[in-house]
């Protein structure tokens, strides 16, 4: 796929199709992707049913943008069927301080999903994201980049290994500034009988000022032998030796801090295939993180 977006859906009380190549179908609140394509979903306000179900039986580039216009609760389900290869980019663009509660359940069969979440939004949030690896060969990569600036954010991200030979990896990065708070709970769970599974996670938060609060909690809940599991977590300020290095090449302390923090979030860009969106996100990072 060349990164073009072939389908656009807007969720604004009801589900509206703006553009389509007829490779997706919508039945009630179920969005079914039956042939390889790309889809952009924009959330403005949540429909009464509160939940959407994505059934993906084919390769998909999925972009989801939160542009909420009020407090919002959403409970989405994603069924990733065997052999599907899904590349997903989720961004919170909500510009006002609403409360968000997002619960996501991603059920992955013998399929591959790579998901990046970029949250530079002004909202407070409590989000629960679970990837359930249901059958052998199931593989999920998750990358979170979250900025909490004068807001309260909490993310629980779980990789639940529910069968043998499953693979999960997550890298969760956060920046807290302007008296914001951020909690990231990374949970890697391998159930009994799920041998030869791999679960890995890194959680890192950079704190800008003393009034900020941050927690990065890594959990590994492993109930089987013969598995690979690793976790790491850190919370701290920007390394002053990194800043010294950049400043010694002529960058001001402001420029050096911006470069380090943008670098913190930049890897999410690798999940975006659409050039226009990639460019926009690069600019957004410069504006939100530097500004």
């Amino acid at each position: 796929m060349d990164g073009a977006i072939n389908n656009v859906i807007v969720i604004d009380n009801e589900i509206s199709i703006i553009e389509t190549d007829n490779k997706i179908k919508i039945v009630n609140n179920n969005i079914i992707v039956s042939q390889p394509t790309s889809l952009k979903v924009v959330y403005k306000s949540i429909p009464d049913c509160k939940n959407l179900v994505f059934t993906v039986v084919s390769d998909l580039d999925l972009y989801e943008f939160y542009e909420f216009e009020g407090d919002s609760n959403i409970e989405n389900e994603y069924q990733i069927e065997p052999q599907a290869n899904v590349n997903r980019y989720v961004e919170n663009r909500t510009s006002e301080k609403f409360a968000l509660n997002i619960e996501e359940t991603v059920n992955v069969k013998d399929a591959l999903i790579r998901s990046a979440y970029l949250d530079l939004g002004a909202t407070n949030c409590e989000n629960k994201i679970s990837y359930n690896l249901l059958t052998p060969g199931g593989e999920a990569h998750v990358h979170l980049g979250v900025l909490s600036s004068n807001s309260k954010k909490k993310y629980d991200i779980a990789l639940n290994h529910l069968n043998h030979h499953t693979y999960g990896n997550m890298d969760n990065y956060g920046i807290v500034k302007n008296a914001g708070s951020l909690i990231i709970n990374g949970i890697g769970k391998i159930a009994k009988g799920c041998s030869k599974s791999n679960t890995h996670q890194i959680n890192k938060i950079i704190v800008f000022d003393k009034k900020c609060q941050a927690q990065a909690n890594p959990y590994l809940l492993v109930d089987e032998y013969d598995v690979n599991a690793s976790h790491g977590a850190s919370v701290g300020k920007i390394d002053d030796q990194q800043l010294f290095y950049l400043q010694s090449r002529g960058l001001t302390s402001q420029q050096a801090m911006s470069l380090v923090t943008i670098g913190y979030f930049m890897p999410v860009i690798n999940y975006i295939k659409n050039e226009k969106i990639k460019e926009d996100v690069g600019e957004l990072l410069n504006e939100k993180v530097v500004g």
Partner: protein
Amino acid sequence: MAVLKIKNLHVEVEGKKILKGVNLEINPNEVHAIMGPNGNGKSTLLSTIMGNPKYIVTEGSIELDGKDLIQMSVDERSKAGLFLAMQYPQEIPGVTTSDFLRAAMNARREKPISLFKFIKELDGAITELKMDENLAHRYLNAGFSGGEKKRNEILQMKLLQPQIAMLDEIDSGLDVDALRIVAQAINEMRDENRSMMLVSHYERMFKLVEPTHVHVIVNGVIVLEGGPEIVDKIDTEGYDWVKELGIELLQDEERKPILLENCAHAGKF
């Protein structure tokens, strides 16, 4: 034309006195070798000149063309023409080498460098230093081998064209071929408007890049100064002769036999 004058410089790191009265003058077209045993203040001197916040000047002065360097921020020192190739270059994940280099080059220009000119200069330097062609797209020093990091420091020096280049153990971690390439790049940078300060333990470095002046730092002071002949003296005799001058040699750290118990309590040391 940058002239660096250091007078009676005293420096502390985390409350520990490292430099105890260093005097030094660096003029254009000079290459100064700073030698001495480990832990006696060589790197501290270079880092202090560059402005590393870990190093606190407690007494003395550093002047660049008559201006008080100690009052200048790190980036102002860089823009004034100073450069430090670090012993342990920092890794900055997420920031590509090319984005960083462009930002650094633009920091000292009124108009930003054009993309075409930048790529041409960068590609030229990468080829000359026989570095990885993908370097520009890789994150700054992240996952680089020790030798790659050192070459990347030299690459930055070539692109930034400093007036006073300080190189801290640039030869450590380099194999023989890489050392030759790096030494050649350093020699090509020598000219009448530029000066250099080199810290190294090895004679071979100063055979490849011959200094005009040699200083030996022991226990935070310069105990001997002269020309390249001092390099040979140290190569054959080590530093034991220093004791004849009535100066105590500082060890990097207290040596102790290694016991398993020590490892278990390593956190206390």
